[in-house]
């Protein structure tokens, strides 16, 4: 059987929204992919978003490592202490107008009975010297199958109008 990608659901924000939710995720695929084209409201140029699995907002259940470029240098670090999977920089309300971050989250073996690892590619573009490209490796310590994914803004801002998020199943 050839590898293929199937759209499960898609959300486009039509008015600023505090969260984006995918629930009752089908359990018949091998992996999941979440593609985000988004921007936040508020007074920040660079914001960030969190992914939560199965409504889990327990800080201790998420960890990660990142590699980041800011247009000037490359740095690396650990992400932890967030109430969800931290997914890097995200165009905020004062970033270059009409410019949206492009992200892809890949979650292999999302129905397996072990902890869930995932990878994130993030590009936060802006017409200025500083903009971010980031690679993230993450871990959710939950051993249940993933049946829901929730996106929230880490700084309690809203997802801006025209933000789109699409969930794909992969065989």
């Amino acid at each position, binding site marked *: 059987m050839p590898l293929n990608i199937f759209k499960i659901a898609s959300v486009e924000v039509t008015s600023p929204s505090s969260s984006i939710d995918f629930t009752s995720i089908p359990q018949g695929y091998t992996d999941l992919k979440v593609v985000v084209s988004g921007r936040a409201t508020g007074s920040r140029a660079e914001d960030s978003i969190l992914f939560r699995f199965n409504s889990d907002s327990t800080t201790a259940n998420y960890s990660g490592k990142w590699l980041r470029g800011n247009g000037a240098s490359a740095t690396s670090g650990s992400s932890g202490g967030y109430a969800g999977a931290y997914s890097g920089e995200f165009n905020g309300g004062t970033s270059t107008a009409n410019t949206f971050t492009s992200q*892809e989250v890949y979650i292999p073996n999302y129905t397996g009975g072990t902890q869930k690892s995932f990878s994130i590619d993030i*590009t936060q573009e802006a017409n200025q010297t500083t903009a971010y*490209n980031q*690679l993230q490796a993450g871990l959710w310590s939950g051993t249940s199958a993933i049946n829901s994914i929730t996106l929230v803004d880490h700084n309690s801002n809203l997802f801006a109008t025209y933000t789109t998020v699409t969930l794909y199943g992969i065989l």
Partner: protein
Amino acid sequence: MAIRSLKTGTISRSALAGNALSYPGSFEYIDSVTVGAGGTSTITFTSIPQTYKHLQIRYSGFVANDAFMRFNSDTGANYSRHSLYGNGSNGSAYSGPNETVIGFTYTASNTNPGSSICDILDYTNTSRYKTVRILNGDDQNGSGIIMLASGNWRNTAAITSITIFEDSGVFGQHSSFALYGIN
């Protein structure tokens, strides 16, 4: 004939042996170019269908210098680009506001191919500028580059054409470019 449920993703048991399984996936081929003898400096995808949600370009090829990308034949300083890259010894970053191009691939070689996967999300949305995300790399068994790059085209027009070009040389023979639409 086995059927995959689009709602649950599960496969029903085949009732007829030998029947091929057919799935209406979300990833569809649009067009491709394979470079012939003598090479070419420019690849253009035109009349791009406006019926998908996202586009993806997959590239494998040979190029002696950096290559770039433009949309809808726009040659103005309407682009910005940034990248995170490593060369096997150091990690670095690049910044390029107000440029006339988006970076597509760094120099590879005319011997060992480099590759890129380029995602363009919401390419038909006329309320937003267009952001590009590119994962690119090549290894020359000595030198090489791994790069995550971004680009932004400050234009709300839907993307109808994509030009990829090498500004001081050519893409070598057997270089291949494939354009896909994603629903």
